[in-house]
């Protein structure tokens, strides 16, 4: 039973048992290359043997499974058994992700490496808090710095993110193309933003005395860098007028 140093002549039976023994004591997914080194077999054989084992456990109806997650092999409880496993208070189960966190994660996952400002621009909101939380939980990490001026920190997803989603790699994420809005949605949005004249508009609803030459200038003044004042200064329309306009609907 003492391991012999010759490479890859180890019989399947022993290699399989050795893999089971090692993976049983790893507390994160075991890299096939490391396993290959330890068991002295080729990395491809590690994967093949683990796949065999996984199939065996499944056919035997075991309560656990062997899966490849975040690039490594690990034991985990089988999904069907979750009612039993969940009865038991587990540590390390992190809170469910908010929709803000999920959207931010989706952007980072598909667009990495990406800066905080770029994420904010896509989401249209400040993402500092969400990004900080995701970083603390270990789902995203600083990957690099933008070589350009400003040297913004660029973020990417981590293996903890892959584990959270039960993925082996980012390539298992559905292609972004699958999420491109359907023609119906595009049409709905286009309609929503239509500004050409509508024939059926009842013009009597519009206040008669509003100057239509609208020209909204926006001026933002930061006073004392604390007080935030917005001046919606317009040549011929004021906020009051807008209210009138809106109220008239």
């Amino acid at each position: 039973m003492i391991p012999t140093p010759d490479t890859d002549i180890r019989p399947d039976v022993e290699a399989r048992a050795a893999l089971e023994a090692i993976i049983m004591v790893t507390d994160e997914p075991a890299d096939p290359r490391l396993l290959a080194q330890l068991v002295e077999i080729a990395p491809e054989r590690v994967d093949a043997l683990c796949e065999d084992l996984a199939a065996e456990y499944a056919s035997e109806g075991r309560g656990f499974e062997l899966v490849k997650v975040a690039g490594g092999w690990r034991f985990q409880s089988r999904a069907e058994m979750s009612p039993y496993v969940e009865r038991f208070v587990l540590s390390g189960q992190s809170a469910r992700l908010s929709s803000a966190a999920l959207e931010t994660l989706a952007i980072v996952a598909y667009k990495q490496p990406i800066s905080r400002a770029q994420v904010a621009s896509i989401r249209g909101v400040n993402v500092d808090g969400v990004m900080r939380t995701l970083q603390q939980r270990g789902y995203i990490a600083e990957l690099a710095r933008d070589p350009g001026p400003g040297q913004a920190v660029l973020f990417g997803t981590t293996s903890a993110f892959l584990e959270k989603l039960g993925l082996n790699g980012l390539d298992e994420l559905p292609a972004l193309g699958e999420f491109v809005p359907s023609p119906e949605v595009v049409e709905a949005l286009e309609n929503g933003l239509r500004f050409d004249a509508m024939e059926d508009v009842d013009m009597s609803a519009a206040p008669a005395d509003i100057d239509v030459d609208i020209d909204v200038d926006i001026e933002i003044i930061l006073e004392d860098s604390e007080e935030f004042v917005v001046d919606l200064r317009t040549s011929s329309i004021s906020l009051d007028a807008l209210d009138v306009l809106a109220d008239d609907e």
Partner: protein
Amino acid sequence: SQCYGIRMAVAVQTPVFEGPFDLLLHLILQEQVELYEVSLTTIIDAFLIEIERMDHLDLEVTTEFLLIAATLVELKARRLLPGLDDGDLDDELALWDERDLLLARLLEAKTFKDAATVLARLAASAAHRVARRVGPDERYVDLTPDALEGISAEQLRRAFIRATTPKEIPRIDLYHVAPVRASVLDAMAELIAELPGAGKVTFRDLTAALVEKLEIVVRFLAVLELYKQGQIELDQPARFGDIEICWIGSEQEASAELVDAYEG
């Protein structure tokens, strides 16, 4: 010109929208309304609320809000007052550009919103499988006398944060496997063992070592029961002050009989 402090006006209930795109997508897609029908004040209010909600002002994002608001104001005004174009082609084209840009960004936001729902599904499905994270057992402890080798203080800090971050709320009712099963009977038995000969004890002391609030409550009920049976005397010198407990029953009697009395 007029100045509007952002802090004014915004006492409306915060909507669930995550920013201007979220809001617009909701208005246009979910509500199936056209901008024409949407009250402009609603939009502006929602935008102001969003700005108000930001922890600290991010000039870039705030500007974003305002630019989008301005575009919307223009689009809306055009549609409310059709046929009054003064024919300035440049203005017209600029507005088209603005609109296209806004549309493109809405589509992008929508794309990632949909991607996020898939991530949520994946995460939910992964959550049904729990990873084994156990590590080598004690047979291998001697191989690595220094288990902290390579561990930095920073890793320790992160471990602390991990351990104290809110845990997922179990979806399944835990009551029948509740780790704590406090019973008044057990608590009485404990008190009967502890109190005689202990002199005057405060309730605070009696419960200082307890971890579960339920245990404390149950112990309190046990104290009341013993009081009712005349085994202890209670005193509380100050309102909401410490409750003092003193055993006055006979020590011989301090037995299962009292517990039986409770059951009966």
